[in-house]
């Protein structure tokens, strides 16, 4: 079976930051935690995958299709959510959905109703009235109602309280069981321990390692000794001397 997502050597150069060649791939039903410190290049990578940022080099394939050549077809198969942003905040959910669904060939009204109920979303509410957690659920509802096979989520759990984060992690696991591949960036390592199958670590724009969770931890356990958690590994990788 082919990969759901193949990222091959994407790079991006800014005056003060460079994303060095990033390559990884994902299979159906895989939850990949994309981890790194603030400013490491997580959002730039995700936006480069989605052509929101124009990468200098590299290619992205989704379900075997070149992203740039089949942009509209690819987007029929993916969902994207970012924490902390609300589109059309003064519009009601039902008004946004009424327009959005016309763009999707596979829009499933029954699924939409199902996720509205499951996520306890009120269609009459305006986006500005939703909490951060509910906004992420709203974006997920859109993605799942058109049967997205790949979800790309940028810090979806940032700004959520522990209970909402735990709920979100459970949602990710259940979606993965249904075959949805989920790539989500975060710097909250405890979320990954609950739901990620693989870890892709990025530091200063450079891919440090991409591996199944257990392999990732084992490889650092040998260097660090004991049974380190993801947080221990992150601190180990990022530790710098503080000079005041």
């Amino acid at each position, binding site marked *: 079976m082919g990969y759901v997502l193949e990222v091959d050597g994407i790079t991006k150069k800014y005056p003060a930051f460079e994303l060095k060649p990033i390559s990884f791939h994902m299979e159906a039903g895989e939850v990949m935690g994309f981890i790194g410190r603030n400013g490491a290049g997580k959002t730039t990578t995700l*936006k480069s995958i989605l052509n*929101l*940022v*124009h990468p200098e080099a590299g290619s992205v394939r989704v379900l075997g299709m070149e992203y740039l050549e089949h942009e509209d*077809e690819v987007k029929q198969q993916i969902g994207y959510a970012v924490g902390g*942003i609300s589109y059309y905040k003064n519009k009601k959910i039902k008004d946004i959905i009424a*327009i959005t669904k016309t763009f999707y060939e596979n829009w499933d009204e029954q699924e939409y109703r199902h996720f509205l109920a499951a996520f306890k979303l009120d269609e009459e509410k305006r986006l500005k009235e939703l909490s951060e957690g509910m906004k992420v659920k709203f974006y997920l509802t859109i993605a799942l109602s058109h049967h997205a096979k790949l979800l790309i989520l940028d810090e979806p759990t940032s700004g959520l309280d522990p209970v909402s984060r735990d709920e979100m992690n459970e949602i990710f696991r259940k979606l993965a069981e249904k075959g949805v591949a989920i790539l989500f960036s975060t710097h909250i390592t405890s979320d990954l321990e609950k739901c990620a199958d693989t870890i892709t670590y990025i530091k200063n724009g450079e891919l440090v390692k991409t591996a199944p969770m257990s392999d990732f931890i084992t490889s650092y356990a040998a260097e660090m000794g004991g049974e380190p958690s993801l947080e221990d590994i992150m601190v180990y990788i990022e530790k710098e001397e503080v000079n005041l």
Partner: protein
Amino acid sequence: MKKLLYKEMKLTAHPLSYFFILFALMAMIPGYPIAVGGYFVCLGLFYTYQQARECDDITYTVMLPVRKRDAVKAKYVFAIFIECVAFLLSLILTMVRMNALGGAVVYASNPMMNANAAYLGYLLMIYGLFHLIFIRGFFRTAYKYGKPFVVFTIAGFVLIGIGEVLHHIPGLTGLNDPAMVNAPQLVILVLGLLFYVGGTAVAYAASVKDFERIDL
């Protein structure tokens, strides 16, 4: 294209973009630089760009299952739609003025621009400038709209000024005929039409090129 236009109308458009179409009624005012009405139609469209930036409309559009360049197309299609409605209203009012009110003293002795074929040509030029200067300028960054609008305002008023001066030049007074269509008026109308179509095509191609390059 239909879906993109519908999306612009329902989610992005500021109500003033529709309301300012009514400035086409300025065609009936005597002793007034009536081509300013065309500028106000563009000002109405400007409010939609303010709203679009505020609600992150561009990113939302790009993430729909469309090509990135379709976000540019959506904005042009909406602007053209509003301009066409305003132009149609201006055309009807111009025909009323020329046919039913052409002999009215206020229009016959009007020192400012009369509504006729030349006036319609100037309107098309203003709309063309809006595409070439404002929309094209906006898509250089997809968020900065202040400077392009100031430049468009200056260019628009220079054009309106030229239109108000031309019909006072001996030999070109026919440009302001309130009742009859003549050759000089038709020249301005055809030039306006060519400028609108050509300018829009150039502006759209350049906007797509710039937008493909920028990072959101």
